[in-house]
């Protein structure tokens, strides 16, 4: 048995879903589209399990976004694997009129329904009272009162679902189909064995949006609507008006409004006076941003250090108990290190989504969209792109996931494409080391440190290039999709912590399982490349180093052996192979190895560099790496390898380069095609190469 939860955005549908299914839910995809499908299981009153599907929020069956289109397709395709046996229509009781529109439409498709009156407490507060028994009588279908916020009324709802599945009831609505349309509707109804004329009308008026129809079926429908001279927009407009009139009549009998109390918006409007104020609005927004960054950077550090340490000690432990072999190395340095590379991001993702979901829950996020829309529109994005752009300063992966909220596909794609240009926290270790190497530790006007200014400059460079990138993509990308900005501004509410918890869990799960697979796979490949090499160069590395460095202790020898091995491994050879390509940027083959390994994740750069320059693991703190790099001399020129030109060139390279396989994986997941991550990889690499080249030759 499948029960679908259906309702307007912000009607409390998702919290009801969470209450009904608890942790027994999973997130998948609707077949063929990028829309998340939330499915869970729920025990109803006779002890049997039913499948509950949380359909995306929508105002009507006429879709304006991909999310909404899914609702139409699931509900009009009787052969769809998710076609519901029963629809639970969740409505915001403080706004019944608008919410009942969707209720009537779903009913007219011939799907049995239960009406769940949510947010009655909110309605009461503003002086609206609903006579539930009378409403049930007029509508002729079961009506239940629930409080999805507090989880009240769930048993009643489950009992009602149980009974409704036994005895399915449908509410008869006002006639929206005119006489001259009826013969055509009948023909379509017969051809597709549909339940109602109204369902047939959707086949006729929205043929292109029903992707499950084959071309022959579409031709059939096109012919009929052509003969009928059907004006889809006019039909839709008339239908909506007729329904509102009908709903008005129903509501006049069951809803009482206390006139004095009735202004639901007073408080929200007062808060808005401050939060979208022309001056304070931006000040508060920047303040909140600052707070989020501070927390994400500082708080997430503790669990991240724990994970880092935990993975390292797990590896040490395994290495000490397992026999020394390639299999052990693969397990520890390849697989577990790879998994560690995934897990390490969890704290940042969790913290970031905690904040984002609090901002969303409270209603503030919609105001951020209002504040930023005009500024960012010029760059091919919409106000809704602000959230991903900001988030990506912590980590691009959750940021790209948060671009979901952008309804317009072009806006969303542009946002996804430019988001990785924002400097994420993984670039920070590279920035700090290279800046420390070349920027003097002096102060401008004795106040601002040059090093800090340089760091800020790199972040700004990332930000502005994201804007410029958006502007270019706006010119290039074409779209026929017509979408509107118009959106509902939710009233301010206290965040529901349980909902915040669910969001965090959901995002972390998606990241670990989807992006994680790819990260682990590439980590293993990189491990193989770095641990094997052809011929004697690799296999005899140990003897060679021992022969060259007679008199050193084993501890002193080990880092040198590791360096020698890496140089002669496939990764090392590849570094030498690409040297001609990176020479114009001022890099030698050793930096080349680091470039290759850091393709997995940027932060690997520092680790690789310290291995190559044979810095023992014990004293690998920043200061030793720094002094070691400073003294590194290019044997051909006699100049320092990390000259000012090379270091700046590397800095710029890392601002632009798409060196993060997690990002590639998540872009693939979000766009459902390899086309976009590949384009992104190419354009960002090209940008990185050209800019680094220019910087190197300018400074040299």
């Amino acid at each position: 048995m499948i029960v679908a939860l259906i309702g307007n955005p912000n009607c409390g549908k998702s919290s009801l879903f969470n209450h009904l299914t608890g942790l027994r839910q999973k997130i998948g995809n609707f077949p063929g589209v990028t829309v998340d499908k939330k499915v869970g299981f729920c025990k109803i009153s006779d002890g049997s399990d039913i499948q509950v599907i949380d359909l995306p929020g929508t105002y009507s069956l006429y879709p304006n976004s991909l999310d909404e289109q899914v609702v139409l397709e699931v509900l009009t395709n009787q052969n769809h694997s998710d076609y519901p046996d029963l629809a639970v229509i969740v409505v915001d009781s403080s706004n019944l009129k608008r919410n009942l529109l969707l209720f009537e439409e779903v009913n007219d498709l011939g799907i049995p329904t239960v009406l769940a009156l949510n947010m009655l407490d909110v309605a009461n507060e503003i002086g609206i009272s609903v006579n539930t028994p009378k409403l049930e009588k007029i509508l002729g279908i079961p009506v239940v009162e629930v409080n999805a916020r507090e989880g009240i009324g769930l048993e009643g709802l489950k009992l009602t679902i149980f009974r409704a599945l036994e005895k399915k009831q449908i509410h008869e609505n006002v006639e929206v189909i005119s006489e001259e349309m009826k013969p055509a509707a009948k023909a379509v109804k017969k051809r597709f064995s549909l339940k109602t004329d109204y369902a047939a009308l959707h086949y006729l008026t929205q043929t292109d949006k029903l992707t499950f129809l084959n071309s022959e079926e579409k031709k059939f429908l096109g012919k009929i609507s052509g003969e009928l001279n059907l004006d889809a927009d006019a039909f839709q407009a008339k239908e909506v008006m007729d329904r509102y009139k009908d709903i008005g009549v129903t509501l006049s009998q069951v809803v009482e409004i206390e006139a004095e109390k009735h202004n639901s918006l007073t408080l929200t409007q007062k808060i808005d006076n401050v939060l979208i104020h022309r001056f304070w609005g931006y000040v508060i927004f920047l303040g909140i941003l600052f707070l989020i960054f501070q927390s994400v950077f500082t708080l997430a550090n503790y669990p991240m250090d724990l994970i880092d340490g935990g993975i390292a000690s797990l590896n040490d432990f395994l290495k000490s108990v397992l026999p020394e072999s390639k299999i052990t190395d693969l397990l520890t340095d390849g697989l577990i290190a790879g998994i560690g590379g995934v897990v390490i991001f969890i704290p940042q993702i969790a913290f970031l989504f905690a904040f984002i979901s609090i901002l969303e829950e409270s209603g503030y996020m919609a105001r951020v969209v209002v504040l930023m829309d005009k500024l960012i529109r010029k760059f091919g994005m919409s106000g809704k792109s602000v959230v991903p752009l900001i988030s990506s300063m912590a980590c691009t992966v959750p940021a790209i996931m948060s671009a979901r909220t952008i309804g317009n596909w072009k806006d969303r794609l542009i946002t996804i494409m430019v988001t990785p240009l924002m400097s994420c926290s993984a670039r920070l270790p590279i920035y700090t080391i290279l800046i420390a190497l070349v920027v003097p530790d002096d102060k401008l006007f004795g106040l601002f440190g040059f090093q800090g200014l340089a760091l800020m400059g790199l972040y700004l460079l990332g930000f502005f290039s994201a804007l410029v990138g958006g502007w270019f993509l706006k010119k290039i990308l074409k779209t026929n999709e017509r979408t509107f900005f118009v959106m509902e501004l939710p009233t301010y509410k206290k965040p529901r912590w349980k909902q915040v918890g669910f969001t965090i869990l959901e995002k972390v799960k998606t990241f670990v399982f989807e992006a994680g697979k790819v990260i682990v796979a590439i980590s293993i490949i990189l491990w193989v490349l770095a641990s094997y090499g052809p011929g004697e160069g690799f296999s005899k590395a140990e003897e060679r180093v021992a022969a060259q460095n007679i008199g050193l202790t084993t501890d002193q020898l080990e880092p040198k052996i590791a360096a020698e091995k890496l140089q002669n491994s496939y990764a090392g050879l590849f570094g030498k192979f690409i040297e001609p390509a990176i020479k114009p940027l001022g890099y030698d083959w050793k930096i080349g190895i680091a470039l290759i390994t850091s393709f997995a994740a940027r932060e690997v750069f520092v680790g690789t560099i310290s291995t190559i320059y044979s810095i023992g693991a014990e004293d690998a703190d920043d200061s030793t790496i720094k002094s070691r790099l400073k003294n590194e001399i290019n044997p051909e020129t006699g100049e320092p390898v990390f000259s000012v030109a090379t270091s700046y060139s590397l800095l710029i390279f890392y601002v632009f380069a798409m060196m993060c396989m997690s990002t590639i994986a998540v872009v693939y997941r979000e766009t459902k095609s390899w086309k976009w991550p590949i384009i992104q990889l190419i354009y960002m690499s090209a940008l990185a190469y050209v800019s680094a080249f220019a910087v190197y030759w300018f400074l040299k």
Partner: protein
Amino acid sequence: MKSVADLKEGEKGVISAFLDNKLALKLLEMGCLPGTEVTLDHKAPLGCPYCISVSEDYQLSLRKSEAITILID
């Protein structure tokens, strides 16, 4: 002809007609019917988008280009 874009902050108007058919359909299903009273609550600091409240029940945000297609009495 006056549109929602001509309202001053705090001013009210009653929707009389829509100039953009497609947008009208979207607005209709969101409850903005002809005859509905709307109030311009705020303009965003840069003059766009607008925040309007619909029959004092709920708020919508829409761009200026969208607001000028909603005619009012």
